[in-house]
């Protein structure tokens, strides 16, 4: 069977990259972040999501077995 950590990690890494880039691109757009009390939530959520996605990917079977082969 498929190890769910792989698609899960991949999806959240993509979410993370999208949100981080968007957060960086909108850095200093104070009007846009007035709703979120002045916090750049895209950047913060993006980084958090990306870390989660990468951790999931790192522990997923396809990635681990590839790393074993290399060693």
């Amino acid at each position, binding site marked *: 069977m498929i190890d769910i950590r792989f*698609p899960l990690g991949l*999806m959240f890494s993509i979410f993370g990259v999208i*949100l981080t880039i968007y957060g960086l691109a909108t850095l200093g757009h104070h009007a846009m972040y007035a709703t*979120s009390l002045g916090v750049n939530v895209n950047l913060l959520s993006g980084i958090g999501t990306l870390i989660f996605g990468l951790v999931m990917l790192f522990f997923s079977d396809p990635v681990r077995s590839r790393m074993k082969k290399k060693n």
Partner: protein
Amino acid sequence: MDTKFALGGIDYLIMGVYFVFVLGIGWALKKYMKNASAFLEAGRSIPAWVAGLAFISTNLGALEVMGMTGSGLKYGMHTTHFYLIGAIPAMVFLALFMMRFYYGSKARSVPEYLKLRFNEKTRGLNAILFAIMTILASGIAMYALAILLENVLGWNFLVSLFASAAIVLAYTYLGGLSSAIYNEVLQFFIIIGLLPMAILVMKDVGGWHGMQASLAPIVEAKGYAPDTWTTHWKYTGHASDNPFGVAWYGIFAGLGFVLAFGYWCTNFLIVQRAMAAESMTAARKVPLIGAIPKMFIPFLIILPGVASLVLLNDPAKGFALPLNDAGQPIYDYTIIMLLKQYLPAGVLGLGVTALLASFMSGMAGNVSAFNTVWTYDIYQSYIRPVTGNKEADDKHYLKVGRIATILGVLASIAAAFIASKFGNIMDFLQAIFSMINAPLFAVILLGMFWKRSTGNAAFTGLLVGFLVALVHRGLSVPEGATTLMKGGWIAPLITYPVEMAQNFWTAIYAFSAATLLTVILSLLAKRTKTDEELNGLVYSMTPRLDDSGVLWYKRPWFLAVIVGVMFFALTILFW
């Protein structure tokens, strides 16, 4: 009140990525679906943590999420009873005492367990009621989703309805139960994407203490003690002291015992996730693994609801709920309005995707439970024998399971259309069918732990318990009810302060009637099954499981202790 979201390209991009993964997982699982067991039971190969997250995600449908945030606003922290006393003890009990019988017997579904333990007619009654209930539930979810998409995103109702049905059909048809479970895991993690919203709401009301201070005058004006909204047991001494309208013994017996155990321990929709686990030890750990994140979900969805009461009473915040035709606020829209209020484009897309995901996995969950019960408990036992050939190969049942998936989705669409024309009737039917859980729990409990209980007694108990629930609803009304849909269609003899109280007591009466009748009839009749036949089905007739081969910290009992400690800590913390 404008409920429309202004979604940008970035939000649609996030949504699109999610849909690609949902369908991609279904596609990738397709090649593993070689027989009926793989399709309908996930081949009993799911790791405990995956099944554990799916176990609680199945319950975390969008209607649940929206309803819980709304209840946070209406009842305050009392709503957390649904996540603590109303879930955790039942999940621990299922794990430690019941899972081994569901998983260890040859049953492939809860109705099939009833057949093995009792008789064919008990199974038949439960299977048919369950099949109708799942279709109603998925139809209502589908309807609610389409309405939401229309109101919030401005999408066409029919397009939303058919598009969501097509996506759910595609991934459950391709990957069966495995696909449903995998998507529930995705959904679980996307729901955590609501965290930025929850944090921002709490920040805006000045954190927990700021919220407590602001709530005090608002709650006092409603006629309750100032800290009623931020405590969950303190004011349950008298039913009239808390907004639930139920005293502690009602919460204990109604929610904590009958409703919770009936739902978590006997609803096949839920139990099916644990039955798909890869081993007996894994199956017993599934509910315990689910219980840990379950206890923290209130911080994500209930707490922001409680804080909304502050926002609603502070004109400076500009927070309001849409009103219905009668001019009453629609509490279910609380979370929608919070998302709109606090999230900018980007994370907003993630928030909307979380709601979409929970809608679709709610439907998929129902469809994947329906096709199993249809294939094994209705088709294999009643329809196949009539066609002459009693035995058929596994390929045949795989095909039947796939056709049942299509039929289930089509029936759900039909149910969604009926709901759009006669919304009240659908809510009414769902309330009626939700009454099967309480007597079912009584019967399964007696079956599993009392070898003396007989098939005929169980069947009668199940049927009469259901009828008692119907009659009780016919005789009682929640205060201020304007339609017969809420009850009282025989004669409104009993009045409950709120609908919640009516539900609790309906469940208690149905459970008691079913228990009493099953016990009496069993004692009057001769035992129908020998001790040997009950091996693996009844507690006292089954050798104890030996966990000595499992490391101590990997044993279900150890996990149960951790869950218990966390449960008591949270209960006392928010007392």
